[in-house]
Each structure stands twice: as structure tokens, then as C-alpha cells.
């Protein structure tokens, strides 16, 4: 287990999954995906929205996506919160308990990049500092529709809308 203080430098073992692996994962999980959610220090807003995914309005089961009680059955780790110091170890244990291949999704501003907390004495700030993240779902909290989009994007069943933008400058107009 990586201890808290070692995390100042990005873990070299955390790498982005290759495209081939991603394809394989999408092939495996495309039609049926089981999610294990871990709250690593959120304000409960993200949980409230995630919980609503199974409500009649969003009914994520119709998309073949289910929540599971144990990481042993999970294909995807859905992490919310600013990764508090006390949750680092449980989070890593959860990830370790998942079978491979496994996906990790950072949900909400806190898990994506710290939100208002950032890196502090009590929060790690970014999920990507300890686990390889496949998809980031920004928002505070992300709406259920944003969550669905993020999950489908992870599975290769939706298109990514946002792309890195380098804006032309008004003064000299270069891109």
C-alpha cells in the first residue's frame, strides 16, 4: 500500500491503459457493467446523484449498468470525494480487491482535481494521484445525466464532447 507521504511524486506505476486494453475492456463490459462506488470524502451531493441513477427517472439498469455491494464483483470503481487521508488506504484496498480488467472513474470536482479542497493536510486532492483513472466526470455534483454520459463514455458507448481547446487570442489572433 502506498502511504500518504509517498504520494507527493506521481506514482510511476500508475499509467494510462493502452488503447488495445481499452478496446478489450469495452468489449468485455459493453453490455453489462457492475459498479462499486467508494466515497472518499465527498459532501454527499455526488452520492445523492449516484443513488438517483437507479431511481425511475434514470433507471441505469436499462443500460446494463448495475451497482454491486462488493468490489469482488465489480468492473468499475466509481470514486467521489476529495480523497481524504483516512480513505486512501480503504480506497486502495478496494481497488486491489477488484478483479482485472478494471476501470476507474473519478466523479465530481473533488475526485477529478480536488475541487475546493485541493491538496491539503487532510485531503489528497486528486484520485489520479493514487489510481489510474480512465474517465473524469466533472461537476459539483455531476448530474445523473452527466454520470450516465461518463459511464457510457468509459464503455465506449458515447462520444466525448469536450476537447482541449487552445483559444485564439484576440490581440494577435494566433491559435
Amino acid at each position, binding site marked *: 500500500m502506498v502511504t500518504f507521504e509517498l504520494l507527493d511524486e506521481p506514482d510511476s506505476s500508475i499509467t494510462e491503459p493502452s488503447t488495445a486494453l481499452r478496446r478489450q475492456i469495452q468489449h468485455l463490459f459493453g453490455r453489462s457493467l457492475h459498479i462499486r462506488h467508494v466515497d472518499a470524502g465527498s459532501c454527499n451531493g455526488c452520492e445523492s446523484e449516484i443513488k438517483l441513477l437507479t431511481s425511475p427517472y434514470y433507471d441505469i439498469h*436499462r443500460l446494463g449498468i448495475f451497482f454491486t455491494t462488493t468490489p469482488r464483483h465489480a468492473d468499475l470503481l466509481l470514486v467521489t470525494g476529495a480523497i481524504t487521508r483516512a480513505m486512501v488506504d480503504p480506497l486502495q484496498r478496494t481497488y486491489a480487491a477488484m478483479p482485472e480488467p478494471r476501470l476507474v472513474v473519478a466523479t465530481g470536482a473533488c475526485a477529478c482535481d480536488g475541487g475546493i479542497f*485541493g491538496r491539503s493536510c487532510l485531503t489528497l486532492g486528486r484520485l489520479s494521484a493514487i489510481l489510474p483513472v480512465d474517465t473524469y466526470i466533472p461537476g459539483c455534483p455531476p448530474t445523473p445525466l452527466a454520470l450516465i454520459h461518463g459511464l457510457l463514455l468509459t464503455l465506449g458507448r458515447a462520444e466525448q464532447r469536450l476537447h482541449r481547446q487552445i483559444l485564439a487570442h484576440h490581440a494577435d489572433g494566433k491559435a
Partner: protein
Amino acid sequence: MELGWLLRGWRTGIVTTPYPTRPDPPPQGFRGRPQLDGERCRIDDGCTVCVEVCLPRALRLETVPNGLDRRLVLDLLPCIMCGLCVQACPTGALHMQSDGELAVRSPQDAQTIVPLEMEVSSDGHI
């Protein structure tokens, strides 16, 4: 009793969103994400109101790896969609959009960058 619940469910009808088959747009005025208009931004005039007002540092001035150039970055990952920057922006270069499909594969994709060339003195101060 069970029948009562059944009836209630039947009366409720289908409320499930058509998304992702068809879009399900959020209501007007929903704070989906801030969008930056490079044409209007006065960052090169030294206007950093939005950067100062942003609590999660989603709007920040960064030094480009070459160590000379700086740029304004709007990073949606830490953004809490509070809209303070939109209110603060004197030129209206920032506005809130209501779209919700923000998920990205790579952190870079959530960034909007306004490059900015500046003269940098030897001790790093402008």
C-alpha cells in the same frame, strides 16, 4: 395494500429519461459549465479578476513548460460551476453553459487555454 402500490406505480407512468437515445436538456439557467470566449478575454491587458475570484483554482495562470510563456487555463476538472467568474468578468468573456456531457478521458481535454506571451524579466517577475 400491494395492489395500492401497484396502482400508484401504474398511475405514475413512465418517467424515465430518453437519454442517451435522445437528449434531455437541463432547464434554462442551469449552471452546467463556464465557457471562455478568447475574443473578449482581456488577460493580456493584465485583467485577472476571474483568476482571483476562483476558489478551486480552476481558472489559473500557468507558466508554459518552456518557462517563458504564460497562459490562462480554464480547467473544468476542479471547477465547481459556482459562476463567480462569470459574475466577475468585466468583459463578458465568460458565460455559463447548461450542457451536461462533460466527461473526459484525459485531463487535458477538460482544459481551455488562452496562450499569452509576456516579457519575462530575469528574476521571473513581470
